[in-house]
Structure formats: structure tokens, C-alpha cells
């Protein structure tokens, strides 16, 4: 494990919060998994604002609405551990600026993306050096954005996009054992947030792009409403992994509504068991992609409103 010796590092393996017997007697309510209160196609509210960082040529801040259970737990804490977390991230865009002297001539803008979790962002502490998951997110984000930017308008220049994640989504409920589905579902929500926020920041920096690109997540989750047979699944938009017992597969897209095009698609998990409605003959992965696109359309309305708002703010200053 590489540790940055220039900093005072936290304990390497994290610490466990103390559990007091009094809390245990409180009953199950404190340590129950949060349940999804939203409709399957209902998204969490998004807060998005641009132009908050004056030294950057473009910036944005994005926050997801805390889920109902999280809001309740914050107002009336029963446990030291919050039941879930809500995404908070900041994105800055620097540039266009000259390429470093060592770089070769490029007729297009050169995009550099950098996604970093703050050390305190997730339940498990993150180091200061980017790990492979963060680098992977950076590549995903770059793929999503490069399709949206009109790169040939900015020859010989570079654009640095930095996303700092202040609070990340959990991969699963903290109380459930890491079962076979321990994939990093939270990362997919983070990526969708990164795409939306970066798009707002790019618009704020006045970089030419084809459309405001929005990120959306859809997932197939095991059905928990006891009245149906075991093993059935449900398609849900904008899933919070902490609210579900088991996520079978999930999909995140970067989507441009004006062109109806997907620049980034990341789907994983077993989507073959999708139980869709009668007469719906789409295969599981198609339904998932469509669901994620619907979620992205929802995020796009917020995104468009945020960009318009910042434009009006500047115009209104005169």
C-alpha cells in the first residue's frame, strides 16, 4: 500500500465506531436498512450551481437530495452511522490553456480528467493518491465528455477537468455483509454525478459542446415487496445502493438529449433476469439502457436550468 509520507495519514484500516449496549437495546429501528421511498421511476432531487470557484474558468457544485431515511436519521439520530449517504461533488475546469512544451501538436483540444475522492468521502477512507477505481472513473468521464465537446474549435490547447468528490455513494448498506454482489455500485452513481457536474462546468467555461451531457443511472434490483415470487427483479432509476438488498445489474450513461446519443455507456452485472411488463419484448440490457437514458433526461432538465440560471445571473448584473 502506497502511503503518502508527506502527510499525516489516518489509520490504515479505518476504525469502527463504538457500539454501546444501550444502542442495541434500542431495538432494530436504528440498524435497519433504509427502504426506498421513491417510485421506481422517481429521481432524487439534484442541486446544481455553476461558477462557484472564481479562480477556475468554469466550475460547478452538485448535490443529491438525501434519501428520506437519511434525512430522518440526521434530524433524529438513532445511530452513529448514517443509514446511507448522498452524493456531493465539486467540479472545476481550467483552460483552455497552452499545452506543455513536451506535448505534440494537436489540432483538437486535449482533455485531461481527474476524479478524486476526498479522503473522508466514503465510509472506507481513501488515500491521497488516486487508486485504480478513481483512475477508471477518470477514463469514463473523459470518454463521456470528449464526445460532447467540439474539440476542433480549440487547437493547440488543453483543458483540465477536476472532480472532487466530497461525499460518495455507498456500494451497499453498511450493515449487510459483503455478499457475492460486492461490485462497486456506488461508483456508477458517482460517475453519473461527475458527468452532469462536469457538463455544467464546461458550459460555465464557455467551451463549445454539442449539447449539455447528463449522466443517469438505472439498476435491476431484487424485488423486496413480499407479494411477488422470489427472484423477480425490478427496474429502478437513480438507485441508492444502500436502499436495496441486492442489485443485480446497473447501467450508467452519458446522454445528449438534443441528439439522442450516448457517449458513455457502462453496464455491468446480470441483466438477463429482467422481469419486464407484459408485451415488453426488450431484452434486459436494452431496458436498462433505456432506463438510464430516462434518468439522464431527468438530470438534463436540472442541468439546463442551472446553466440558464447562471447565464441570467451574469446578464442580470448589468
Amino acid at each position, binding site marked *: 500500500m502506497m502511503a503518502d509520507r508527506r502527510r499525516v495519514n489516518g489509520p490504515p484500516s479505518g476504525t469502527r465506531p463504538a457500539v454501546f449496549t444501550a444502542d442495541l437495546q434500542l431495538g432494530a429501528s436504528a440498524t435497519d436498512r433504509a427502504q426506498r421511498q421513491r417510485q421506481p421511476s422517481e429521481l432524487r432531487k439534484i442541486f446544481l450551481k455553476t461558477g462557484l470557484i*472564481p*479562480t477556475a*474558468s468554469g466550475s460547478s457544485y452538485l448535490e443529491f437530495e438525501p434519501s428520506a431515511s437519511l434525512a430522518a436519521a440526521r434530524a433524529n439520530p438513532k445511530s452513529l452511522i448514517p443509514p446511507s449517504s448522498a452524493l456531493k461533488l465539486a467540479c472545476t475546469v481550467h*483552460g*483552455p*490553456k*497552452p*499545452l*506543455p*512544451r513536451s*506535448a*505534440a*501538436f494537436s489540432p483538437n483540444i486535449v482533455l485531461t480528467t481527474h476524479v478524486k475522492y476526498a479522503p473522508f468521502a466514503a465510509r472506507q477512507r481513501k488515500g491521497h493518491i488516486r487508486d485504480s477505481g478513481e483512475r477508471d472513473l477518470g477514463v469514463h468521464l473523459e470518454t463521456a465528455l470528449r464526445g460532447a465537446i*467540439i474539440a476542433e474549435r*480549440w*487547437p*493547440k*490547447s488543453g483543458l483540465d477537468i477536476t472532480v472532487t468528490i466530497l461525499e460518495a455513494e455507498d456500494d451497499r448498506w453498511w450493515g449487510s455483509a459483503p455478499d457475492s454482489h460486492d461490485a462497486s455500485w456506488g461508483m456508477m452513481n458517482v460517475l453519473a454525478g461527475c458527468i452532469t457536474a462536469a457538463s455544467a462546468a464546461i*458550459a*460555465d*467555461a*464557455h*467551451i*463549445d*459542446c*454539442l*449539447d*449539455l451531457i447528463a449522466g443517469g443511472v438505472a439498476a435491476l434490483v431484487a424485488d423486496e415487496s413480499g407479494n411477488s415470487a422470489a427472484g423477480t427483479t425490478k427496474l429502478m432509476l437513480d438507485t441508492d445502493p444502500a436502499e436495496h438488498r441486492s442489485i443485480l445489474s446497473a447501467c450508467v450513461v452519458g446522454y*445528449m*438529449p*438534443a*441528439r439522442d446519443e450516448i457517449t458513455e455507456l457502462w453496464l455491468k452485472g446480470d441483466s438477463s433476469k429482467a422481469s419486464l411488463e407484459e408485451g415488453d419484448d426488450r431484452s434486459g440490457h436494452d431496458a436498462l439502457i433505456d432506463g438510464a437514458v430516462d434518468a439522464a433526461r431527468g438530470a438534463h432538465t436540472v442541468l*439546463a436550468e442551472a*446553466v*440558464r440560471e*447562471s*447565464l*441570467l445571473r*451574469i*446578464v442580470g*448584473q*448589468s
Partner: protein
Amino acid sequence: MTTSVPKLAIPGQRLGSISAYSAGPGTHVQQSNIYASIAGPVVVDPAISQTNKKSILRVSRIVAGIDPSKSNQASSAASKKKPRYNTLPAVDSIVLARVTRVQKRQVTVSILVVLDDTTPANPEANQAASDNDNIASILTTAANPENHSSTDELRFQALIRKEDVRAVEKDRVVMDEMFRVGDIIRGSVLSLGDQSFYYLTTARNDLGVVMARSEAGNMMFPVSWKEMRDPVTGAGEQRKVARPY
């Protein structure tokens, strides 16, 4: 032209059909429609040439109404709105640049500001409210020798080759008598150049040194097309001077 053009546009917003307008800066064309590619006010420029009867639809990068009176002081510029260098130098655009290195065959400059190229070589461009609205503050800080900081790496670098300095007597050019390190010059972009440098020219009367300090460190005033003078010591120094307005 049945559909009205929106006043403000955000990227991806449809502005009009290509049959009614032609696409200008800040827009792109897709499926025979013009879409905005940046956020800003939509401007319809009337047709200029006879061959093209369509008026040009563009989205302005410049959000009108940023108060120019406030941004004259460098201090308020920081608190209000940072100047944004997101207008790239293009061929034929007029730039202000600071000389960073003088060699026998060429001088190296770093580009400070790209002037509005809708009104090239027009001093009124400075008055237009734009991203470049505090040119004065940029120049005064840039002309100070103490401020030659390391920020040059964040600026676009350019070269003026010996043969591009002036239009006449090109073979008699001595670089030391044309530019000194720290001078602020106005130049026109010849080409995007190679991987690291743009190529500039000053071979026009209105191009050349606009601000310079003497050896004594005083700001000089121009007296002829090739001389500037120190108001305190009275000593003259040779420069390729731009025509003052």
C-alpha cells in the same frame, strides 16, 4: 424565418433552420438545424456578402453589461470576474504580448490578450465590454518588471521571426534595436505555428511596441516609428514602435 430566435441560448438548444440562417461562432449544425454550442445571448448579424443572403446566427461569448468602469482596478477585477482567456489566438487576430526573450533571429513573446477580432486593429475594441475588459490592468501589471512571474507557462507562447518584424528593410533588422525583454507589443497572428509557438508579425504601421520601459526603468513615450524616449532622463532608445492612436 417563421420561428423566432431565442434571446439566450444554452448548449444543445435549437436556434433555427439552416435554410433561414447560416451558422456563426458559438453554434454548430446538425440535421440541417443550427444548435447553440455555448451558453450566451443569441446575436443575429445581417448578411454581409452578396453571395450569401442569409443572416448569420451566432452565440456571443461576451455577456454584455459587465461594468467596464469597475474592472479598471486590478483589485476589483479579482473580486468581480476574472478575465478569461478563452478566446484563442487564431490566424489574423490581433494580440497583445510581452517580450520574454530576444535572440538574434527571433524574439519570444507570451500572449497576454487576444483582442476582439470583430473589430481588428481598432482601439475602440478596448472599450467594448468583453472578457478582455480590463486590458489596462493586465498591461500595467505585465509591464512591471517585478511582475514577470512564472505565469508565462499558462500563456500561449509566440515567436516573431526577424523577417516578420517590419515590412521594409527586412535584411537590416537588428533584433536588439527592435524589442527588449519586458516590452508590450501588439502583433498579428500569422499562423498557429508548431507544437509550442504561434507565429506573430509586427510588419504593419499599427503593430509593434506599445509600452516599454527605459534602462532607467521609466515608462517611455514614442517619438518616431523607431524611437522611444524616457521622459525623466531624456535618453532615447530604439524600438519598432507601433503607431499610437
